[in-house]
């Protein structure tokens, strides 16, 4: 928390402030285009488009199956997971008043990953296809309970961040332990591949399992909008504006845990989307936390879908994992962003 938000964001430039409605509209249009694209791009790239059309002509039933069982769930998951990461990133950055906050900060994603890894490790995944996501959600829930118990009644930002660091470290250690004692190299590979994050081979069942928790999480996160605005003025003033800060923090933490936990449970860990998206969109909404939430959700969905389409286009043979791509593109991009900001505002 040493880097103050204004140090990074200090804007001397005039506002390129556009209405959140216009911003959301543009991003939604982009998501729709990518979405329709996503329905026709297969695992082995664009070359399959004629193939798909051919299947549609000759065997509509199979084509329909491909669409409803593979492509649509994959597209929906990419959109909803992206929205979750964008939205929770925006809320956490607002809550902690720190532009470096991101959904993984609280340790919820790593513990969700650990829960899934445990399912792999104990071999439950073989007998029960939804074992992995259920394990992930259990892991996220456990981390949330620990977080709430540690944070106590007031949930000081610093305590939250430190608790998140501890939970992250513990989850990473236990995940490594599982890898260490993996029964076979194949099992270890399965775990590693899963942690990398991907939307491949997810079914409608995954969507149905994750959606309720994600939607509930979104509602809780969105309900903090006004309080996040008030927090711009510090905690005392926020409370003097009649806002129940304890409830705000609870809604942000539980909302993040539900949505991100469910997202990680079905896709593995996807990094950088929750950090970069709010950061990119913030200047466009005049830096106001409440106006950032919806654009961040839609922007996250769009970016995630774009990454997933890119993964499918680039893959030959072994499919690239989307989590690898987001970090690979996101990290240098973020460095570039910091460089530009520093140059503009030394």
């Amino acid at each position, binding site marked *: 928390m040493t880097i*103050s*938000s*204004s140090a990074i*964001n*200090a*804007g*001397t430039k005039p*506002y390129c*402030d556009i209405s959140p409605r216009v911003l959301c509209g543009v991003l939604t249009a982009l998501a729709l285009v990518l979405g329709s694209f996503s329905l026709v791009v297969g695992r082995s790239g664009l070359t399959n488009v004629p193939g798909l059309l051919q299947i549609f002509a000759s065997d509509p039933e199979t084509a329909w199956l491909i669409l409803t069982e593979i492509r649509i769930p994959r597209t929906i998951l990419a959109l909803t997971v992206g929205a979750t990461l964008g939205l929770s990133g925006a809320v956490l950055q607002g809550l902690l*008043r720190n532009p470096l906050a991101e959904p993984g900060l609280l340790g919820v994603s790593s513990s969700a990953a650990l829960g899934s890894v445990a399912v792999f490790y104990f071999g439950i995944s073989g007998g029960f296809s939804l074992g992995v996501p259920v394990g992930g959600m259990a892991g996220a829930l456990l981390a949330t309970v620990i977080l709430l118990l540690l944070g106590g009644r007031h949930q000081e930002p610093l305590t939250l961040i430190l608790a998140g660091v501890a939970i992250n470290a513990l989850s990473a250690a236990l995940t490594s332990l599982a890898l260490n004692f993996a029964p076979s190299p194949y099992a270890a590979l399965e775990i590693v591949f899963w942690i990398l994050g991907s939307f491949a081979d997810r079914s409608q069942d995954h969507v149905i399992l994750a959606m309720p928790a994600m939607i509930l999480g979104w509602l809780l996160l969105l309900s903090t909008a*006004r309080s996040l*605005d*008030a*927090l*711009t*003025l*510090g905690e*005392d*003033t926020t*409370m*003097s*504006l*009649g*806002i*129940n800060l304890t409830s705000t923090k609870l809604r942000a933490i539980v909302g993040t845990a539900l949505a991100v936990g469910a997202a990680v449970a079905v896709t593995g860990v996807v990094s950088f989307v929750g950090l970069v998206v709010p950061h990119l969109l913030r200047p466009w909404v*005049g*830096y*106001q*936390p409440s106006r950032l939430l919806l654009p961040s959700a839609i922007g996250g969905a769009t970016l995630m879908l774009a990454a997933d389409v890119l993964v499918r286009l680039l893959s030959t043979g072994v499919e690239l994992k989307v989590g690898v791509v987001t970090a690979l593109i996101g990290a240098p991009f973020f460095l570039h962003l910091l460089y530009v900001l520093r140059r503009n505002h030394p």
Partner: protein
Amino acid sequence: MIDSSLAVTSKNLRVNFNDVSVLTDISVQFLPGKLIGLIGPNGAGKTTLLRSLIGLVSLVEGSVSIGNKDVQAWSKASLARHVSYLAQGQRVHWPLQVERLIALGRLPHLGPWSQHGCEDRSAISDAMSFADVTSLAQRTVTTLSVGELGRVLLARALASDPAVLLADEPVGSLDPGHALQVMRVFQDLAKSGRTVVVVLHDLTLAARFCDRLVLLKGGRLIGDGRPKEILTPRNLSLAYGVTATINEKDEQLMVVPWEPI
């Protein structure tokens, strides 16, 4: 409906931080219509007293009431519509536009999903002209000088059109011209029947503009009365440990602290 005048009363207030007493046996009543200055050295408990008055501090003993109701009995939203608190040395965490920052003062008046209406907009523009920041409306808060930011934050506090205004060192960072102007704003607010309590370190400003001064020292109330009764050489040496040159101009006091004792 907003009550336009509310008295703020504390009875036998006692506040501890980590078992150290910060306020001891404070019984004081702040009435509408008069500008009240809260003075005392650093660490006297002025900020804690203001925070206690709006229920931000848990009391060991005693009670605070606003109007006829205990502060804890007020709903948070209703209390926020009636009482505005301007915190000391505030930092703004995001580089918002000035007008949007001031609009945050209207939060207590907004329904859960409603947008600013006519009433909100006129309150915001009134607050901006009161605090003389209308010309800054389109600026970014991070580009303001300390004094400009101070006035913008004052406008934020005024935007809710409160019956009670508690301001913690609002003129500390202002130049003499704006300090006088802001004190006049407080005076006008008090004259319009509001309850206004202002923490001040400039004793001449306090003597000149306040109708009544409340003097704290070491968490205790050591003086409460008209400026001429409070700003005596004895009180100044007792509270601040200074000797001061006290003169009169136009029947008003000029207090210039001179030597530490």
